């Protein structure tokens, strides 16, 4: 009998679809001369003083594992940073784990909390990873549609309607990829009001916390009664332009942190040492870098919104991250067709909203982590395309 590898893989894995965004990128990567607004990462190189700190650590031979949860001086800097920027207080020794990007942080958080059959509430559209990670943990994803008329914010009514006795975890992915929506303090207080008196936990993915253009980001963990049930996820990719360094972290009470630490130590051991030394420098001397990059994004955000409006595309004014979510529903085709045709006919790439969940259907995500000249060029191609319809 021949060995049949295909039949030997886990059905838990085969039941999970590859990321929809991936499929689109595979086509895109095959094409030349594409003007893309697809990339979900900064167009800045990591500031030199941060790269230099990483290089220096290599020169000094700091190439060992760190402690599982990360260098203690690094965790202390993270604690100081969170207090300085967002008023959150976490103990460096017992409440912080340094992870391989925000992605690992999300993974260990969901795994540490989810028992088979537990419901995980996921507001959509959102980043693609929560649903499959919840499924892998045996959880049952429950989607809440974020609506344009609500500014793509989570409303207390829709949350209340989604709660059941089996609800274990609410994912709060704000500032939001792909819509650019944020939850203000009052919005979070309304959500907290629904959760008080329940035993529902929160995973607050705050990877874009530094990139808000109106009010400063507020963490749900700062709302009374929420800290004890919340795991905050953050990282260095977006704020410091450090995507390739793969560095994130969790902030959570000790009883959560202890359990997450087990997943982390068995699966990962520790986050890359070089990255940790570089990020210590980022936290000590990088606040100015954040402000500079944010100022650049803010200008581009205004530019892309005004350009899209000029060519007759309705957009929701994003208040965070570096994406705009464009409404394509009036063009008489679904978002995948629109994006595919735009790519084929005008060699311009944007990401169909349905890649971020069913509730993103009819929209497209445009990243403005590009130079103003590039943004203008892309919008001109979209304009040419629309004129042919």
């Amino acid at each position, binding site marked *: 009998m021949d060995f049949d590898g295909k039949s030997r893989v886990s059905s838990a894995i085969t039941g999970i679809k590859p990321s929809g965004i991936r499929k689109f990128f595979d086509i895109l990567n095959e094409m030349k001369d594409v003007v893309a607004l697809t*990339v*979900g*990462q900064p*167009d800045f190189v990591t500031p030199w003083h941060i790269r230099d700190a990483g290089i220096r650590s290599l020169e000094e031979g700091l190439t060992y594992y760190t402690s599982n949860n990360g260098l203690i001086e690094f965790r202390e800097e993270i604690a100081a940073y969170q207090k300085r920027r967002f008023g959150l207080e976490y103990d460096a020794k017992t409440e912080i784990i340094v992870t391989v990007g925000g992605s690992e942080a999300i993974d260990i958080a969901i795994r540490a909390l989810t028992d088979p059959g537990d419901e995980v509430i996921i507001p959509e559209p959102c980043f693609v990873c929560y649903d499959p990670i919840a499924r892998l943990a045996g959880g049952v994803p429950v989607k809440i549609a974020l609506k344009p008329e609500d500014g793509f914010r989570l409303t207390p009514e829709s949350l209340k309607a989604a709660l059941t006795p089996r609800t274990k975890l609410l994912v709060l992915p704000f500032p939001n990829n792909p819509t650019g929506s944020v939850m203000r303090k009052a919005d979070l207080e309304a959500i907290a009001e629904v959760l008080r008196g329940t035993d529902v936990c929160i995973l607050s993915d705050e990877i874009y916390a530094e990139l808000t253009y109106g009010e400063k980001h507020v963490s749900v963990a700062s709302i009374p009664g929420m800290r004890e049930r919340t795991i905050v996820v953050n990282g260095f990719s977006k704020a410091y332009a450090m*995507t390739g360094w793969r560095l994130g972290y969790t902030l959570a009470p000790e009883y959560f942190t202890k359990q997450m630490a087990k997943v982390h130590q068995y699966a990962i051991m520790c986050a890359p040492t070089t990255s940790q030394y570089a990020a210590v420098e980022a936290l000590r001397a990088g606040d100015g870098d954040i402000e500079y990059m944010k100022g650049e994004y803010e*200008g*581009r955000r*205004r*530019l892309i919104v*005004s350009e899209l409006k000029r060519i007759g595309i309705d957009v929701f004014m994003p208040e965070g991250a570096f994406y705009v979510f464009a409404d394509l529903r009036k063009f008489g085709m679904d978002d995948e067709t629109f994006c595919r045709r735009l790519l084929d006919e005008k060699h311009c790439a944007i990401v169909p909203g349905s890649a971020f969940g069913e509730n993103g259907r009819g929209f497209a995500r445009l990243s403005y982590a590009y130079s103003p000249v590039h943004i203008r060029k892309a919008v001109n191609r979209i304009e040419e395309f629309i004129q042919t319809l």
Partner: protein
Amino acid sequence: MKERILAYLEKDARMPHSDIATMLGITEEEVDRIVAECEAEGIIKAYRTVVDWTRTGKNRVAALIELKTIPQRDRGFTAVAERICNFPEVASVTLMSGGFDLAITVEGDSMRDVAMFVAEKLATIEGVTATATHFELQKYKEHGVIYGAETTDKRGNE
């Protein structure tokens, strides 16, 4: 606001005022007005193009020249500096602290041209006591632009 407009224009002199206005959330007229003011006040000196001539195949030689001079009563280094500014071969003239007085950059078609210019025109100016000529061999960065830098977008789609 003025500083932010200048920062955009310093990076890209061709950026349309309408884009700058949108990005800063002000009107185009306001940008026009502030830019005109900056031009009138001499804050904006010129709009120029950063050219890497070595890529055109054209031979161009540039040199940094250290100049020692005797400062004049009342006018200091200004008289000599102003005199040197008049030569079209001279690209920049800067008064320096340290071991010499004026740093001059000179451009020409050949090393001989530049050397002769220094010997015949600069060294002979009254008040100039010494010159030292350093030829540029390779330009790595100019006006904030890295010359050899990769311009393609290497970011992976995540």
